[in-house]
């Protein structure tokens, strides 16, 4: 380079270090171009760790560690797409508030780091002492739907069969308990029947209390792929993003969904828009149901829901037989004081119109957390592993046989539900509480109630990946967990697909996978034999596989993790012996696996051997359900009054929900990503209708105070006609919200009702 070139380069530099930093080079492994400095030397795919969509993420590995990721194009769930949380999934691992050592609260009330040995001794000594003094009923745990099912299962086995505890529940109580109970009562098993393919194959999609555009963007992707120009109906008091994208929106009054559904059933029956043959052949209880909905005439229901008779008729007409109708619901239904009956009213609509077991149909509960279903099936909390019941002697025997434990060690009725455990704490019956990977100090309905209860505890142990969650701040002992990406295990998504978590990133400091923590506690407790044959997550999976045999969720056909990896996830049922769990009446309860083959012989119409995996499978294609008679049941009950109606003093109904696809639950993880933080409103906000706002002289951006009988929250006003007059909306991700919510619970599922409480709003005095 001569001087002239050098000079001209100095004056006008087209390339150099800064340019090279941004160079993209062709990726291998099916990737397109990727940043050169993050060029992977291998890739591996795993399931995202946030929501129940269960997207496959292709992790870019360099020198054996994760450096970047892209959504996996070959994974049947997300087809190469991800929401912002998925794209940023690796970022929260590197946050500097990770818990890296066990921590104990000292005499001054400060949390100080201690060695694992000391922490584990403290844990076991304290809990043993509590049990010795107050009995088994005095210790409980609250876990999660965020960790792999092997860990959830181990926790259930360790606590209930090893430590002898009776009470444990999970945050799935806050999200899926309603669907669980509704399906169980209607179908005979907790079995969401759909596959995501159904989004693409429907003519009519109805979303009840669901906002997939924000809550499940990748499921919405599948809706957008539907080539049938579907009618999309959204039933939600609020004009959500999904309501705007829909072809029809029914903004019913809050908590009028059950009357609405009965009203629709009334019209369908009256007009004869039902599938009589299907009802006759595959269901029971229809006559009683028809009798029940007689009183729900369109005029009355039109008034109760605020929709009017004409719109109700229009709605019912959309459900007329002849089209593939799929019915979907999420938290608007589940988190309700009468959620179970509401979910079942949706199921009833599907049953009476024959919209089940066929492509593009179904009464479909979209799950919330990544492993809510794993928790429902295997956590040993509300039911015995494999979707079994504590009350059933045969079920207890099966579990005892497979785990090699004494059947007498198995409790004969389920332990307390989440709210009952907290009541126990409040009333001093429960003295020690162990919380794993959940954040009730933010998320519990009427959060102050939880915080008050926590003050009464002799011991609060919080096992979490961060040492400063709202709940960890209250702890006496913090156990540092490795998180998603730092451990292995299986999770089950909304369409019953088992997917893998893998270990792609080193855990910080002395954080340990929950798996190891449970093993260590077993060791220190002196009950490690109860976890025998569970020395690795994959071994544990094999134990669980045995427990699934003969159950509707049978996945015994899955050889190992590798098979799940290679198949891109596998939906249950995937039995080693197909006939055992093909939809239909369950086989005779099998005390051990060998009995299953007998059952399969009993039904020669079904093929022997594993069913083809198929990328996407749905349930009930043969019209047989899991009740002993093989039929689905119409379940119903009278609507209950709203637990906390608005009053002149608290004239607004407060609705809660998700506000952005970039936030997850209590924002402990998503709040750690600088990019995600740019994608949501950092200040708490409350949506208010323009009419109400102008009456109260509130302008967009003003700080306001929202008060309920339980507490108050400060937020910025967002004036928008997405809410109706008399209603407010606040995002659940802001910690203030649950200072306001009203603690009412569905009587069947004990799920809290987050979506309706009475509040008032005023401008903050400067």
């Amino acid at each position, binding site marked *: 380079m001569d001087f002239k070139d050098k000079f001209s380069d100095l*004056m*006008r*530099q*087209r*390339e150099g270090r*800064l340019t090279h930093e*941004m*160079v993209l080079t062709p990726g*291998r*492994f*099916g990737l*397109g*171009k*990727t*940043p050169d400095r*993050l060029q992977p*030397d*291998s890739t591996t*795919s795993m399931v995202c760790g946030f929501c129940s969509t269960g997207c496959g993420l292709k992790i870019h*590995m360099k*020198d*054996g560690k994760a450096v*970047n990721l*892209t959504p996996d*194009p070959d994974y049947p769930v997300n087809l*190469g*797409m*991800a929401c*912002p949380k998925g*794209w940023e999934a690796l970022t929260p691992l590197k946050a500097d508030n990770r818990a890296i050592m066990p921590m104990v609260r000292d005499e001054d009330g400060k949390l100080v780091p201690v060695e*694992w*040995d000391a922490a*584990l001794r403290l844990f076991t000594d304290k809990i043993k002492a509590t049990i010795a003094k107050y009995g088994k009923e005095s210790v409980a745990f609250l876990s999660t739907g965020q960790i792999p099912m092997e860990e959830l299962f181990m926790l259930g086995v360790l606590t209930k069969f090893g430590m002898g505890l009776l009470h444990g529940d999970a945050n799935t109580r806050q999200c899926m308990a309603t669907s669980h109970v509704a399906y169980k009562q209607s179908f005979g098993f907790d079995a969401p029947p759909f596959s995501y393919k159904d989004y693409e194959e429907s003519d009519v999609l109805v979303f009840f209390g669901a906002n997939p555009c*924000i809550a499940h963007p990748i499921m*919405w992707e599948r809706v*957008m792929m539907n080539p049938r120009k579907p009618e999309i109906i959204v039933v939600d008091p609020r*004009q959500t*993003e*999904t309501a*705007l*994208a829909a072809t029809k929106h029914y903004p019913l009054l809050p908590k009028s969904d059950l009357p609405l559904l009965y009203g629709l059933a009334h019209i369908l029956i009256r007009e004869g828009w039902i599938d009589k043959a299907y009802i006759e052949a595959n269901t029971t209880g229809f006559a009683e149901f028809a009798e029940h909905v007689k009183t729900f005439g369109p005029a009355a229901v039109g008034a109760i829901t605020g929709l009017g008779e004409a719109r109700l008729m229009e709605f019912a007409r959309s459900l007329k037989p002849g089209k593939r109708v799929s019915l979907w619901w999420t938290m608007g239904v589940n988190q309700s004081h009468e959620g179970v009956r509401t979910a079942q009213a949706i199921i009833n609509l599907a049953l009476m119109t024959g919209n089940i077991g066929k492509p593009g149909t179904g009464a479909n509960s979209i799950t919330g957390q990544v492993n809510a279903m794993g928790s429902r099936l295997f956590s040993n909390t509300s039911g015995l592993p494999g979707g079994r019941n504590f009350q059933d002697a045969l079920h207890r025997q099966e579990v005892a046989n497979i785990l090699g434990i004494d059947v007498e060690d198995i409790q004969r009725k389920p332990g307390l539900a989440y709210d009952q455990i907290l009541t126990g704490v409040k009333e001093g019956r429960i003295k020690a509480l162990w919380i794993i990977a959940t954040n009730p100090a933010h998320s519990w309905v009427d959060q102050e109630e939880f915080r008050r209860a926590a003050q009464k505890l002799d011991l609060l142990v919080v096992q979490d990946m961060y040492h400063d969650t709202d709940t960890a701040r209250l702890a006496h002992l913090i156990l540092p967990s490795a998180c998603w990406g730092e451990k292995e295990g299986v999770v089950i998504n909304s369409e019953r697909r088992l997917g893998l978590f*893998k*270990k792609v990133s080193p*855990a910080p400091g002395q954080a340990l996978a929950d798996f190891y923590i449970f*093993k*260590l506690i077993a060791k220190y407790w002196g009950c490690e034999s109860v976890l025998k044959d569970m*020395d*690795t997550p994959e*071994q544990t999976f094999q134990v669980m596989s045995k427990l699934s045999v003969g159950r509707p969720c049978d996945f015994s056909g899955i050889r190992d993790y590798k098979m799940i*990896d*290679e198949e891109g996830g596998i939906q249950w049922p995937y039995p080693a012996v197909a006939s055992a769990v093909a939809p239909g009446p369950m086989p005779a309860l099998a005390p051990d696996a060998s009995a299953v083959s007998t059952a399969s012989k009993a039904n020669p119409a079904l093929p022997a051997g594993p069913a083809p995996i198929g990328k996407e499978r749905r349930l009930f294609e043969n019209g047989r359900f899991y009740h002993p008679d093989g039929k689905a049941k119409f379940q119903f009950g009278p609507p209950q009054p709203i637990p906390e109606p608005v009053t002149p003093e608290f004239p607004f109904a407060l609705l809660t929900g998700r506000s952005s696809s*970039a936030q997850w639950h209590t924002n402990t993880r998503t709040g750690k990503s*600088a*990019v995600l*933080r740019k*994608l949501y409103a950092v200040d708490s906000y409350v949506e208010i209708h323009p009419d109400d706002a102008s009456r109260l002289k509130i302008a967009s*951006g003003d700080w306001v105070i929202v008060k309920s009988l339980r507490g108050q929250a400060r937020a910025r006003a967002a004036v*928008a*006609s*997405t809410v109706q007059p008399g209603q407010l909306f606040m995002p659940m991700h802001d910690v203030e919200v649950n200072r306001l919510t009203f603690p009412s619970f569905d009587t069947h599922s004990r799920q809290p009702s987050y979506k309706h409480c009475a509040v008032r709003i005023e401008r903050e005095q400067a």
Partner: protein
Amino acid sequence: MKPDPLPSSQPPGFPAPARPSLARFMGDGPSLIEAYLEDQQNLTAVERFSQAHDRMHDLNGAALAGGATAARSPSLESHYKDLLPLEKPRPGQQYAFEVDLDRCSGCKACVTACHNLNGLDTDETWRSVGLIHNVIGKPLQQTVTTACQHCLEPACSHGCPVKAYEKDPITGIVKHLDDQCIGCEYCILKCPYDVPQYHHGKGIVRKCDMCVGRLEVGEAPACVQACPTKAIRITLVDQAEVRKNFAEYAALPGAPDPAYTLPTTRYKTVRKFPEGMEAADAYKVKKEKAHYPLIFMLTLSQMAAGFIVALEAGSLTGLLPMDPLFQAVSHVLGAALMQLAIAISVMHLGRPLYAFRAMLGFRRSWLSREIVAFGLMGGLGALAAAATVLSAVAAHIGPASSLAPWSRAIALWGAYGSSPWLRVVLAFSALLAVHCSGMVYRDTPRAMWATRLTAGKFFLSGALTGLAGILLVIAGFDASGAIPLTGTLHHLARALILALPLGIIAKLGCEAGIHRHLDDQEANPLKKAAMLLRGELRLQNIWRFNAGFAGGFLLPVLWLYHGYTGTGSFDVIFAALAATLLLAGECLERYLFFAACVPPRMPGA
């Protein structure tokens, strides 16, 4: 605790050896803890799963391409193939983003995909998603995703003093040359879409290049690849068509005026947006970046300019003393102020070492011109200072004829100190510098700056602080007894003191004008600026007024009332106080000039 060896070192197709299992570990508690802690650090994914995975891909690749070395198309290609134009742009055409608003569900994956696939830094984003909505009437809301608009008249490029932007003649992509950038951030002020992003660590600006490296090989840009609902695509647009119908291209409520840059991104929708549709963040006001070096650079350079213009005008008209010492001290002060301003201005740059490139953009960039004008004024000022100092030295050592040759040279050069030409040129260069500074801000799409008021503010600012400076020098010479304040000079001083209150009233009047926008109906940038001045910046605004009023009005009036004593340090204190308060007030004014200047933005940007 070392990670396992890389699988790539193993022969392909060979399963990784199993690690010693913890399966039958029978140790005590602490040693089990040790073992688990160690195992926790062993990353197993690669050895257990990735080989099969990668092998499968490589086999597929080899099969597809017919050879192991040939490039394979990415797995996602089928997803985005129909989102790219089939042909390369023909002359008169260019690539452009097209957003189908009806398909956008607001998931914001485009932002994160752009971040990850381009390897951006922790909090760096080149795409943003905002929301527009209809508050009154039929509820309607729409998310809007934006990145660089790859404009026909890229303001970033027009403003760049170092030509770090290029609009590609074939693709039309507006590309930023990272290594050419000096980090002056002027493009950020110029772009109405808030596209260029300053990177603090690197001291440069970076921005979306439409993933040109991907487009070249038929891959879709990151955002296009990643949109789950295929709402973003790349199209070819006719540039003439954009020029003609730019209003239609920007048919988006809440978006900045497209006439300024002729953006090419097209937003498609079958909906009709109602009249009252606006950005959901329209009422969000947040103070802007203050740019402290620029605050001091502007106020000091304007003080220097005011001072120099007053000095030369006074000297040329004979109102100010031609005493060599007075001239030397004044010119040194003026030049020092200017050099200080220039030194501070360099601190503003992210990469000051490359500041010399700044004249490259002279043809289009006012910033480039400002820098050249500053250089000119700084140079001439230094020259004048040197000459007047020499002149003073010469005067001190006696008449030229009686001296040794070296002192004759001093006298000769010193003579330039009184050259009227140098004085005139210097004064004009000072006026030019202030003019260019004004134009730097007037030539932006920011409503608060893009007005003659900006020039008015800058010149008044210079006049006020410059005159106060001259007063201080006069008072100083008087106090030291060197030049007694009598006759014309006394009258001049009185006139100058009287000028200050008039000047400050005009200046504060200029600034207060913005407050009337508080009553504007829509949330325009001026209204938001007024809201900021009354809200978040209220305190600074009050102090700005207090300082200006005290230094420019109260003190001079008191001074006049008290009567100009013509003796002693009393006047010096008055003059120094007035000058300091005025300068402080102007610095605060300039702080508000930046902090309250709300730029036009895309919704959510």
